[in-house]
């Protein structure tokens, strides 16, 4: 649903109330052969790097340094090494805590704000939306630099909480924009009948809007989770020890199992390990992610 709205707005043909019917794509059965060449090229560009990352992670020693197209002696040693690496496991734990806490808190705060922005009468709504939007364009370094000093003063430097707070600041605008567009999709009649029954706007929000917005909340949660999991600059600036480092930073500072080993094998294995859950997430929730990306993007 929200994709449709996004599409209408994107093309600048928004007519409130009138839904564009989903068209069948045109041109079936008259595809130029060049199109197939292009399809294969696009698929290759998307998939070959994945293949090479996995390929590299399965090789060691000579077969790694010779760059074999197919590993002649595939080995899981790199994976074993990664899972025996205490720092990597700590980083995984840190990333999960940071991403889950940030996503949950952002969703609670943002659902309030998004409801007010989508539905309630409010002074300076456009200004507030613009301010929230402008936060999404802030370069993280402008916040990381002063926080580096402030956090060291007040003891939040190199702690999980010290990462969650600034990550929340960047997660909130994303969540608010995506949710606002989802809340707008919910027909007003449902709230109006709740008002008829004597509900307050806040009750209507809790009892009518929130339950109906569960798919939108799930989509927003996925998008926020991915973006928090991915964030690097704040994480690298505000941490220094394995106790607080999340996965992207740990991988960036990963060295091989021994000084004499090409570390790229283990680094690739670690990369595969943290990529698999996200790839599964994308495969399972493809439709949601696409609708959230386009809806949130058009509005935000």
């Amino acid at each position, binding site marked *: 649903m929200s994709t449709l709205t996004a*599409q209408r*707005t*994107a*093309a*600048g043909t928004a007519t409130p109330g009138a839904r*564009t019917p989903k068209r069948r*794509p045109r041109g079936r059965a008259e595809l130029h052969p060049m199109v197939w060449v292009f*399809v294969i090229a*696009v*698929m290759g*560009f*998307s998939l070959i790097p994945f293949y*090479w990352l996995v390929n590299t992670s399965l*090789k060691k020693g000579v077969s*790694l340094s010779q*760059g074999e197209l197919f590993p002649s002696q595939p080995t899981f040693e790199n994976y074993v090494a990664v899972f025996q690496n205490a720092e990597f496991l700590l980083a995984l734990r840190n990333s999960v805590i940071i991403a889950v806490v940030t996503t949950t808190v952002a969703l609670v*705060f943002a659902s*309030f*704000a998004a409801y*007010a*922005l989508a539905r*309630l*009468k409010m002074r300076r709504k*456009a200004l*507030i*939306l613009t301010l*929230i939007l402008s936060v*999404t*364009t*802030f*370069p*993280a*370094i*402008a916040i990381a*630099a*002063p926080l580096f*000093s402030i956090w060291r003063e007040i003891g939040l430097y190199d702690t999980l909480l010290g990462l969650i707070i600034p990550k929340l600041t960047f997660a*909130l605008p994303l969540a608010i924009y995506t949710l606002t567009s989802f809340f707008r999709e919910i027909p007003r009649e449902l709230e109006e009948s709740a*008002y*008829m*029954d*004597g509900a307050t706007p*806040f009750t209507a929000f809790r009892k009518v809007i929130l339950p109906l917005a569960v798919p939108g909340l799930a989509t927003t949660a996925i998008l926020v989770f991915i973006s928090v*999991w991915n964030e*690097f600059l704040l994480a690298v600036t505000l941490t220094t020890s394995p106790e607080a480092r999340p996965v*992207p930073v740990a*991988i*960036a500072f990963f060295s091989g199992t021994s000084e004499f080993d090409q570390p*790229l094998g283990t680094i*690739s294995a670690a*990369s595969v390990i*943290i*990529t698999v859950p*996200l*790839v599964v997430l*994308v495969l399972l929730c*493809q439709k949601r992610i*696409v609708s959230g990306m386009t809806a949130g*993007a*058009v509005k935000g």
Partner: protein
Amino acid sequence: MATKSLSPGRWGSSSGMNGRDREERRLAFRMTAPSLVLMALVAAVPIGYALWLSLNQYSVRTAGLSRFVGLDNYVAALSGPHWWAAFGQTFLFAGLSVSLELVLGTAMALLLNLAFKGRALLRTVVLLPYAVVTVVSAITWETMFQPNLGLVTNVLSTLGLPGGDVIWLGEHGYAMAVIVLADVWKTTPFAALIILAGLQVIPAETYEAAELDGASKWQAFVHVTLPLLRPAIVLAAIFRTMDALRVFDLPFVLTRGANGTESMSMLAYTQLRENRLVGEGSALSILTFLTVMVVSVVYIRFAGGNIREVAKEEQ
């Protein structure tokens, strides 16, 4: 978050509307306040503090020792070579990667809008790199271009083409190419999906009309599709440019900023964390901030007419 109850029939009568309006506005204020306060505290306050830090110089030896130097840090940054080099590299990176992403994204969107067997599969495959953490995207492309063990370097040297024996991350132009590729790979899906959303609302009749007028497929694309797609493409361009100007992860992992690939954010980070120059680092981060803000304002003024229309609709 408790609220006083509103009387029923709120939408029916017009009497007492002002009281209810006030009630509703108050609720709206309370519901947005937590988010706004948090963003102000953790975004606006630190930037203000960074401004203050950037006007001082801090002793690298004695903690807490500082002196006010006014705009000296800015003067030093703007008259030295490092800032302008990082500035130039960041814009070079943004220009290259965003143009590639828009061209490739438009092509992908056109493909995904065609009806053919395997369209759903193509959409899934195209979306996959989006799930990859940027740091992993950097590592993936490092494995592709690493001397000896990389796929691209191996294929190039087997075919006897130039580039096979190059240490890609060790030379400026080559290193920049790898950084751009890593970015294009991960973020083109985003551009493609935004543009696809714009493409799907162009009515079929528009094409039929063009066909009746005897337009070729290419003419129809240039004169009908592209102009109608402009808002979606501009939107993708804005988002991608803002993101590209903040680039940090890719050069950090791939080159640590060596070989002239240091971005604005990286330069500020290096001064701050590695060289412990708090004043200089803060000045550089404020300069980065101002640069990105100026670009976003210019973009929205000159290219983002549709953004303002959307904003008006929101009211």
